């Protein structure tokens, strides 16, 4: 690490600060001003450096000091992350609350994790063993959760000593022959994807418990689903319902530029609800990264990188992780604000031209991987989008459509008629349906595919019959078409709608199959009946 250089502030515009300090590196973490606000280097110039400040810059003055940290803005990874609510810069909000009360004031925190807390450590390796990056050297017991301690990526040496029993994060857990040591935690630059051995193409779904998703538009492990919808279409409720029920080991929930009350509701519910698989509160498998709409905008930009780095870390420990971000549009807006204060040339609707490439490299951090230690881990993403005016032709939706594998379009008309989840079954799609077909066939039911296409066929038919019916009325339709209409209505009301507030909020795939089978059986019987009758008539 290099020695600390100090510079001065020469310009301040919004959260963008210019300093005369040179010799900093791009994306280096910096302390800004007398109150040590967190910032990041965003541009190097001939006679100075441009910084982005991640906290409220009000009160920041000319000539105040700037210090470089010599390291990138990083996420701290280790035991003690679960059930914590962090802000976009990974500062634990309850610790922040202890320091500054009910309102957030700029304050400097030493670490994201409690370094003094005592943990019980069980080693998996012994003195003399050779270890390399990603290898598990032992476990720390974190509630129900066995938290593997891994060698930070990049290291390769022999074990000299290793701890056993009670440890803290302050002290090294393990000394290596190359004189370096391994702690219970490590830091990783948030904008840099974590390494893995290889990516694997996905064969398994993430079961969300939402009938319309699992049955019609399934999400693959390691895949990405986007949920665009205007306000009031139920994006947040849908994301939260999935966060409660999805069959994953770890949930990372990023509340990005949304409502504060939603977050307090989320914590309260997650503390009360139990995870049926572990019998522990849902909160124990969840990490929250929260930057509500009134918290500093620049930190909102950083928040999804904090979230995805946390997700990758648990993936590297060999878990199945689901990252939910609500909403990516608010992230894109913060990017736009930063870009505009840097006086960059705007692209479509004022968004920077690198919006699409930033989004696609973010989405690419999802996937199923073989980790450095040879385990299988996955990171799947569900991202909500808030298109202005509910117009899907806007740049954020369009950029995400090119990278995401599944698209759940939320429909204002459906929401207004209180059809929830308001997923439009005509416009939505999932590119994963074919790769997942085998799984559903073998693990759930043989006729999954058959029923799925039948169901889609009925819904398609309904759509085209609807127009005719509006003119001639239901009596004017042929009996066979009337059957389509009644069955389609049944599918809509008994199958596609699902309340988030009752026991129906989670529906396992077998039950999903039973419901749709009952409805389609009725259709097939009715069809036999009507064709039978018409045969009689012709006779």
């Amino acid at each position, binding site marked *: 690490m290099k020695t600390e250089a100090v510079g001065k502030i020469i310009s301040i515009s919004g959260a963008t600060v210019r300093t005369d300090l040179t010799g900093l590196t791009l994306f280096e973490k910096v302390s800004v001003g007398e109150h040590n606000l967190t910032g990041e280097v965003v541009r190097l110039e001939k006679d100075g450096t441009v910084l982005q400040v991640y906290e409220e810059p009000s009160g920041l003055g000319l000539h105040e000091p700037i210090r470089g940290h010599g390291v990138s803005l990083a996420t701290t990874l280790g035991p003690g992350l679960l059930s914590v609510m962090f802000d976009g810069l990974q500062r634990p909000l309850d610790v922040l609350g202890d320091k500054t009360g009910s309102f957030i004031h700029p304050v400097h925190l030493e670490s994201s994790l409690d370094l003094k807390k005592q943990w019980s450590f069980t080693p998996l390796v012994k003195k003399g063993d050779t270890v390399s990056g990603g290898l598990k050297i032992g476990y720390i017991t974190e509630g129900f959760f066995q938290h593997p301690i891994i060698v930070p990526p990049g290291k390769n040496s022999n074990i000299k000593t290793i701890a056993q029993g009670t440890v803290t994060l302050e002290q090294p857990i393990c000394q290596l022959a190359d004189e370096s040591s391994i702690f219970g935690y490590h830091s990783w630059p948030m904008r840099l994807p974590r390494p893995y051995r290889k990516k694997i193409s996905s064969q398994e779904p993430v079961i969300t418990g939402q009938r319309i998703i699992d049955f019609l538009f399934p999400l693959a492990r390691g895949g990405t689903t986007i949920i665009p919808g205007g306000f009031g279409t139920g994006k947040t409720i849908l994301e939260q319902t999935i966060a409660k029920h999805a069959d994953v080991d770890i949930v990372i929930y990023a509340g990005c530029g949304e409502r504060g009350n939603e977050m307090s509701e989320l914590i*309260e519910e997650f503390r009360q609800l139990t995870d049926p698989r572990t019998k522990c509160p849902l909160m124990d498998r969840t990490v929250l990264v929260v930057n509500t709409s009134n918290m500093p905008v620049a930190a909102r930009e950083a928040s999804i990188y904090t979230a995805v780095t946390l997700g990758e870390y648990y993936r590297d420990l060999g878990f199945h992780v689901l990252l939910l971000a609500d909403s990516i549009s608010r992230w894109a807006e913060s990017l736009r604000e930063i870009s505009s204060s840097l006086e960059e040339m705007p692209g479509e609707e004022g968004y920077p031209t690198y919006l699409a490439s930033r989004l696609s490299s973010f989405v690419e951090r999802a996937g199923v991987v073989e980790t450095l230690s040879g385990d299988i881990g996955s990171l799947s993403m569900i991202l909500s989008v808030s298109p202005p005016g509910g117009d899907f032709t806007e740049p954020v939706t369009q950029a995400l459509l090119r990278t995401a594998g599944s698209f759940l379009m939320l429909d204002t008309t459906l929401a207004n008629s209180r059809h929830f989840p308001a997923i439009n079954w005509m416009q939505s799609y999932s590119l994963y349906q074919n790769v997942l077909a085998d799984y559903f066939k073998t693990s759930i039911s043989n006729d999954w595919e058959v029923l799925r296409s039948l169901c889609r066929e009925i819904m398609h038919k309904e759509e085209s019959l609807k127009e005719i019916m509006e003119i001639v009325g239901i009596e004017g339709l042929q009996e066979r078409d009337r059957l389509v209409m009644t069955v389609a209505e049944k599918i809509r009301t008994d199958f596609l709608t699902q309340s988030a507030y009752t026991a129906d909020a989670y529906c396992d795939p077998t039950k999903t199959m039973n419901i749709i089978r009952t409805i389609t059986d009725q259709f097939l019987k009715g069809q036999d009946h009507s064709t039978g009758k018409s045969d009689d008539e012709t006779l």
Partner: protein
Amino acid sequence: MRLSEHKYRTASRVAGQLLYVENIHAARIGEVVKIIGPQNIAFEGEILEIVKGSVLIQLFGETRGLNTENMEIVFTDTTRQVPLSRDILGRRFNGSFEPLDGLPMFYASEWRPAQGYPINPVARLRPEEFIETGISAIDGLNTLVKGQKLPIFSCAGLPAKELVAQILQNARLRESTKKFAVIFVALGLTFYEYSFYLEALQNIESEFVAIINMADDPVMERLMAPRFALTVAEYLAFDHNMDILVLVTDMTNYCDALREISNARKELPGRRGYPGYMYSDLASLYERAGRIRDSQGSITMIPVITMPEDDITHPIPDLTGYITEGQIVLSRELHQQGVFPPVDVLPSLSRLMQKGIGAGRTREDHRDLANQLYKNYAKGRELKKLEAIVGRDGMAETDQSFLDFATVFENEFIHQGSQARSIYISLDKGLEILGRFNLIQDKFEKKTGT
């Protein structure tokens, strides 16, 4: 701290409400500056931007008569603070926070920055206590709860202010209303509207604070007024455990002021010329509503928005809807039918309703009743479109009964005139309408059965 006052005579440029000063030694973002011009013109400004030796200052006052040569600028080394005291109750101020009621300024017991600090999400308490507004369309189907922000989306010419006045007169929490106060923020209001509201305020039992920015007052003050109001609201709610209802009208004027200032700063315009940061800016106001664990008090917010061109997808209602916890939408069609209040319940929504109703809060049957009413009305409205094509006679009898239900619902449940209805009256009304409808439905069933 600076040892002496910093004074400059180096103003280089004035553009609208913006002033550029050169050769500055020390300055901080948000610092308050005093401008002293010729003929003793004096007002305040705030530092927006510092670029090397020069600063950009936003002015709060009438810039007519200013001249860069004869201008003295005093840097105060403090940021903008709001004086606070319990004595503020019952007072009226302008957008620069000067008394408008002829009384002297109160003695402040505390000062706080107008911008406020974001509430820590972990410190928030979930809003769940029912507020009775006396309006069936709100209490019954889009229930307001303590700590919620629920805007009214109106259109030009619709009786939004009459609705707001009626809410003000009747709003009460289920328990005591002793610690209840209203903060009224007028933004760009005409004299006609202003006097209407003031009269309404004077007729209510609870105490109130009014912060008034009239249509011909400086635009800059339009951006500050709601921030003063919310700082006062936070002080009364969270330091003095009061339940505060903040009424802001009209947020459309606020957003237009934001656009005007942004444009003067030569910022990149976003949709319809509004700045790209409008979402965050609106959130910095709306998100100050809520409840916190450390206090008994609450801030509930009812902003009024006039949707330009009656368009709900216009950036102002659109961005508002993304931040607030629902919306009450007024309809021109209902207004023309003579329904008051003309609340269109289909696009209206209260996101926090689920937690605020039911046994112990309103009544056990509230949720089911609301769902039934909504469902039948939605179906009736859907069928009205069909009626326009095929005519009433071309429709099945059951469908006709839904049409009738929609009409009855609009005329008897939504329409209530100037009368306040308690939640029980509203719910009973709903039950009664539903009962009549179900009777007709039963008849049809018997008919088709035989």
